[in-house]
């Protein structure tokens, strides 16, 4: 107990000297205001995003059901929409959300792009970033910690008080831990209220009915952000202790902060994007079209692939024309066409996603060096605003689209007469009750287990950083000199 006592004394002393500086009050006040602004705008954005997307998802569903009796293929072209919904943690961590398309139109034969992203509707201002609680916790707070911590040991050294402390029987280890404790306690004065507000908002948003999955995500979000703040407290003390003057310590800390939060994230991603070039949309689409043509073009009456299908059907059913088949022939062909084209599309998409993955691999790997990237990736994963969540949304939408198109083709095969109506006949239709057979699109965000699996590198690197820093404290405690 006696040992800890000394450390607490040092911590209290540091706290006192920090609060003697009047600048700390205005900074704290300012960050407080910023946090409120971030919480408010995050909330506002989340609510309006989800309300709009729910409203139109609902309306699009009603429109779908309201359709009168029709040919099912008309319905497959009428189509459905997948509107993206946000998870509750995205109030605090916007992640890549502004760059995600919010709506995908799902129709037969065609994989449409996810449209209407916030970025497409913004001018370049967006590229400066956004103010969210996560951004404040991940970028601004570490800098504040450095501003508070750069003096912690270096000042004592400059003043000569360091020697006095050490001759009074305080060990380097006690001094370092005491200083770290002191800075942590100062930062906690901002961190704890923020987390309290965050939890309160989070609970209110869900009307206090919470799921286990969401709760675990929130807890991880809080715990890892706490660990993250600790890094910076430790780093600031270590640098302050090893720097000759406080100015040197300050300059190095600012350098570390700039490299971690501004320079590295952009450069590593840029290296990935530079080395692995992804095709543009026009190239991507024309490649797909070429492959589909190679497989067989259902629009071309003389196409080999489709002619073979036709001939084999005629032999099996022992008829001489497709009109005599016991089921709707064009529905059958469209099923085949949809199967082929989506297979090819998915194959190309996989290749594209592989390129994207390679582009992202630099950033992922660098999270071992840079705790900011590790933290950012993890918190985006937990709030389902990361790259994988977006791809997951698009895949769920595509799965839904494929099922819808094939179900409509199935209805056509089963219920539509195989005899083509004459030019003046009424078009063939089926009863509208079938429209309800297609379920509404529902996006299921990835669970916490999945998130941790994809962001395992981030988790490991954050844990490694803790170990490393404690090892560094030990080494520093042995080797540091008072002069």
């Amino acid at each position, binding site marked *: 107990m006696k040992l800890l006592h000394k450390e607490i004394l040092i911590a209290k002393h540091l706290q006192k000297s920090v609060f003697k500086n009047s600048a700390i009050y205005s900074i704290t006040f300012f960050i407080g205001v910023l946090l409120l602004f*971030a919480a408010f*705008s995050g909330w506002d*954005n989340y609510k*309006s995003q989800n309300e709009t997307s729910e409203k*139109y998802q609902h*309306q*699009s569903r009603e*429109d779908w059901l309201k359709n009168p009796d*029709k040919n099912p293929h*008309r319905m497959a072209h009428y189509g459905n*929409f997948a509107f993206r919904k946000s998870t509750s943690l995205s109030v605090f961590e916007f*992640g890549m959300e502004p760059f995600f398309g919010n*709506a995908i*139109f799902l129709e037969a034969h065609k994989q*449409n*792009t*996810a*449209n*209407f992203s*916030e*970025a497409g*509707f*913004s*001018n*370049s*201002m*967006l*590229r*400066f*970033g*956004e*103010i969210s609680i996560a951004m404040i916790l991940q970028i*601004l707070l570490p*800098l504040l910690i450095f501003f508070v911590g750069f003096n912690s040991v270096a000042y004592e050294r400059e003043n000569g008080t360091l020697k006095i402390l050490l001759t009074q029987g305080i060990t380097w280890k006690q001094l370092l831990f005491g200083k770290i404790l002191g800075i942590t306690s100062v930062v906690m004065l901002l961190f704890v209220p923020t987390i309290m507000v965050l939890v309160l908002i989070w609970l209110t948003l869900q009307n206090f009915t919470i799921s286990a999955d969401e709760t675990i995500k929130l807890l991880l979000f809080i715990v890892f952000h706490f660990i993250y703040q600790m890094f910076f407290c430790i780093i600031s003390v270590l640098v302050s202790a090893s720097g000759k003057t*406080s100015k040197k310590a*300050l300059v190095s800390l600012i350098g570390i902060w*700039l490299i971690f939060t*501004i320079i590295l*994230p*952009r450069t590593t*991603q*840029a290296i990935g*994007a*530079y080395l692995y070039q*992804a095709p*543009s949309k026009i*190239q991507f689409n024309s490649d797909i079209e070429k492959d589909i043509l190679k497989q067989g*073009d259902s629009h*071309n009456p003389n196409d080999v692939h489709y002619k073979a299908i036709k001939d084999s059907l005629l032999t099996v059913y022992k008829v001489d024309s497709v009109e005599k088949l016991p089921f709707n022939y064009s529905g059958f062909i469209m099923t085949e066409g949809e199967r082929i084209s989506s297979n090819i599309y998915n194959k190309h998409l996989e290749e594209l996603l592989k390129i*994207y993955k390679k*582009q*992202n691999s630099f*950033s992922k790997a660098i999270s071992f060096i840079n705790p900011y990237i590790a933290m950012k990736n993890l918190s985006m994963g937990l709030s389902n605003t990361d*790259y994988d969540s*977006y791809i997951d949304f698009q895949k769920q939408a595509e799965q839904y689209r494929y099922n819808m198109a094939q179900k409509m083709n199935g209805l056509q095969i089963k219920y539509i007469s195989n005899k083509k*109506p004459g*030019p003046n*006949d*009424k*078009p063939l239709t089926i009863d509208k009750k079938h429209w309800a057979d297609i379920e509404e699109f529902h996006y299921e965000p990835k669970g916490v287990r999945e998130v941790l699996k994809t962001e395992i590198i981030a988790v490991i690197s954050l844990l490694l950083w803790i170990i490393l820093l404690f090892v560094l404290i030990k080494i520093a405690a042995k080797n540091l000199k008072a002069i």
Partner: protein
Amino acid sequence: MLVLLFKNFIRSKGTKIGLLFLLLIGIISLLIGRQFQEKQQNNITEAAVYQKEHIARNASFHKDEIGLLLYYIKFSLVNHTLPINSLAIGQRDVNPSIQSVTIRGLEAQKYDSELNNPSNLLSGNIDFSFVLLYLFPLLIIAFSYNIISEEKESGTWKITATQSSNTFLYILKLFYIRILSLIGLLTLLLLIAIFFLQIPVDKSFFIFYILSVLYILFWFSICFFIASLQKNSNFNAVILLTIWLFLIIILPAGINTYIINKYKVPEALELTLTQRNAYHEKWDIDKQKTLNKFYKHYPRFKDYKLPDSEFSWLWYYAMQQMGDDESAVQSKELESKLEQRNNASELIAQFIPTLHTQIQLNEIAKSDLRNQLLFIKETKQFHEKLRLHFYPKIFDNEPVNKQKWENFKVETFTDKSETSFAKAFLPLIIFNLLLIAFGWRNFKR
């Protein structure tokens, strides 16, 4: 004296490393710009080849029905990319620079997005404008935060002050060599860019250059002002970095969040739903009703009467037309919302030099929201032109092989809007003069 000061400045290890680092990353930014330019160029060539093949192939399949053929074929419009765009990529990576449209309903096509890796978009490009906006100020701060305080702290200030007849002039000289070396670096980078990226030296480039110089001077003015407060080095470093943080991250991000929340665009989703229903419901209502609406929009096609058959291309394209016509209100609303957004951000940006510079650079490079809105407008005209050309041919069911398909090449839209000197330079000039005046007053006191 000036030469000595310069030698002293350039001999320091930190200075050399800083300048070299900035030169290196500046060159990297030019490489990235060139890659972007090449990608854009490839896309345009690709689009031209693709369109030719695509039309030829479809024209050979659907020889008998021009209406069916035009259901399939796409025509492309390119948003011309200036070489100077490689210096300020702006929103060109988010928004597609090529729009490919069929003559069917436009509203369902014109907001189609580009394929993108969202991780790249989030982290942003390292283009020249990033180097200028983010990194130049950092180096300026690193070079100037301790300009007087260092000498005071090391005790040489008194000697310097007594030896030089005019200390204020001495301070100016210290700034002068720093300004000169950074503007020299900027000029060098832009000179390399001219050759490497084949940027024409014209009025736009001139504005781009002057704007960059004024921006660099703006940061020196800030450092000058802070130096005039005569505080210690630590204080200067903290306060200058805080200013940087404010101007580069907090204010732009805060304003962006404000604008996004103030001008929300639920119209976008409403538009797609309206457009879908407006077209599809026509399948189930009286054909003549649809045609009457179509005649109202295009009186010149009144003489094409609804044929007796269950299906006709006249009816089909009239239905498609209604998808656009009946969602025109939402489309207009969305358009004006986006214009409001753009105007609001440009207005606010005038008071924040960093934002102002970025927006102006993008405006010169035609990579801002304004350019995108113009491109969408132009797409509408392009689409309308195609419609008017093909409608009578479809309604008359003209033979497919009689059309001159080879005449339908990829078209290019060139944004002709010009940047005015006053709008680009005035905000920065005013800020610079104010900061220098206040700094000067502080020194003279």
